[in-house]
């Protein structure tokens, strides 16, 4: 909080500033009121109602008896839920590491001035702007084992055909590849924004001292842009945990349940089996999981800054 609000809050009620220069701070919340009402209705209400549903046996029709923590207890013994958690964490870890490495590399490249930078950057950003369903469809066609272009390209360079999303062993890595293709641009943009805000003097000094490009990256860019890289990593991780559209369209959790992440299982539970109570409990656990990981990462960042 800023100093000005603290000061105005301490002013006694009778000692308002003279008219014309009145203290308006207390009225600014009115601007946010309509949005706050809508946010309460479409965002906060669902949160609270989800909590409520999660302690009831709630199917789409019929009675909805209170069952306490039964839905949560069910998760502990639910093999499908446990594998979904493990799968989600694996998918997330890989879908953070690969885009982060590529994204930082891309940001360092795009931080340079070169001919065609604008258009190259725009093309690079296209995957994350394109409609996820549309790109998922095209990927699906490319993964086709016999007629897909990817296996043809592999055969051209003398490699055997790959299973892509049709093999239980390769489906997760393949989906990670799609996720990486789609979301590396966001990492790049956030880190690029950070690099663009860095002071130029250390670089000029380093060039005079004969530092190589790698040394400049390792000892100047990386430490100075680190806070931005952490932010990009946290955002990437949250988005990877929440990945839905591409997995839903390309595999629907298959083959079998080999790519069924938490979000897909959640969808199936709530909207294919209509077990809304159990689905709600999963939402709560999922949300807590996301919040914990986010807070851990942010706390870690705080420590590094204060250290």
């Amino acid at each position, binding site marked *: 909080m800023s100093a000005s609000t603290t000061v105005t809050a301490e002013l006694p009620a009778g000692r308002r500033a003279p008219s*014309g*220069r009145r203290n*308006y*701070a207390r*009225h*600014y*919340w009115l*601007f*946010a009121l*309509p*949005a*706050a009402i*809508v*946010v309460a209705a*479409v*965002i906060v209400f*669902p949160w609270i*109602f*989800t909590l409520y*549903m999660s302690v009831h046996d709630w199917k789409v029709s019929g009675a909805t008896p209170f069952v306490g923590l039964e839905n949560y207890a069910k998760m502990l013994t639910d093999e499908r839920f446990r594998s979904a958690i493990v799968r989600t964490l694996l998918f997330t870890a890989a879908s953070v590491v690969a885009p982060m490495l590529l994204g930082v*590399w891309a940001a360092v*490249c795009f931080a340079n001035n*070169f001919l065609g930078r604008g258009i190259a*950057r725009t093309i*690079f*950003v296209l*995957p994350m*702007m*394109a*409609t*996820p*369903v*549309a*790109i998922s*469809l*095209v990927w699906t*066609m*490319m993964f086709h084992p016999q*007629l897909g*272009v990817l296996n*043809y390209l592999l055969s051209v360079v003398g490699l055997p055909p790959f299973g892509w999303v049709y093999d239980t062993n390769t489906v997760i890595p393949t989906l990670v590849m799609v996720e990486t293709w789609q979301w590396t641009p*966001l990492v790049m943009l*956030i880190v690029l*924004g950070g690099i663009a805000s860095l002071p130029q003097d250390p670089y000029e000094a380093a060039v005079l001292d004969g530092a190589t490009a790698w040394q400049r990256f390792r000892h100047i860019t990386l430490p100075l842009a680190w806070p931005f890289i952490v*932010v*990009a990593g946290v955002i990437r991780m949250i988005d990877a*945990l*929440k990945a*839905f*559209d591409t997995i839903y*369209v390309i595999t629907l959790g298959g083959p079998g349940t080999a790519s069924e992440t938490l979000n897909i299982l959640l*969808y199936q539970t*709530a*909207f294919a089996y209509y077990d*809304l109570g159990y689905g*709600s409990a999963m*939402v709560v656990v*999922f*949300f807590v999981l*996301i919040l914990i990981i986010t807070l851990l990462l942010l706390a870690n960042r705080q420590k590094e800054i204060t250290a």
Partner: protein
Amino acid sequence: MTRARARLHRIAGKAGLYFSVLVLISPAVLFFLWMLSLAFKNEADNTAYPPVFIPNPPTLDNFIDVFAKNDFLSYTINSVIVSFSATGLALLLGVPAGYGIAKAKASHAAVLILIARVTPGLSYLIPLFLLFQWLGLIGTLTPLVITHLVITVPIVVWIMIGFFEGLPGELEEAALVDGANIWQAFRHVAMPLARPGIMVAMILAFIFSWNNFIFGVVLAGRSTRTLPVAVYNVLTFEQISWGPLAAAALVVTAPVLLLTLLMQKEIVAGLTAGGVKGG
């Protein structure tokens, strides 16, 4: 001698840079070229092995086919209505809210927006689905517009907070001294200054609403499908005809890709500032 070496070094560095950029953008380039290729080839070429890369001759049959077999026109209208309404409402609500939060320095309100960003889109759907069922709204476009606010309002508020915080406050203060009230200071001083920010917020909110799939899958009925949902249904019914499938995919995403190419500066600015993403 050393000068020549330094020059050589610079040229090598430049070449390395161009090579890196080429490697980085080629997956996107090849992907979208292949998408175009699939959409403009005839069916025989699309299932040929080895694959035919360049449509010869390019055909529009796939597009004609997709529009003939599906009611894509009405799905397009649905998408336009939902995305425009959700974006318009979000601007009406979010621009003043961003201003209020920035001016009052209410960081706890910003945290709420952040949490909304973190929450999986699915988690809103279970309670809202029941609510809309109870209100008898399933099968109309209203639930879609309302749920799309979940995406658009946080984007607009978030971007506008950042934008209004970056504006110098002196002009508004001058207006206040001259006797304007805070609404007038906002409406006639701050808002015109914030027009580029509003533009950024509008474009991003629109794109992420247009792209949204998950809300439509659950809430849309047969006649209220948005384009992404309609295209997904083409997949389930036409697994093998790739041409129409790619054409449909292109129809959905072409407006977004064009907007990105035309408005790249605004989009990059908005994404860099907020790290926003829909759903």
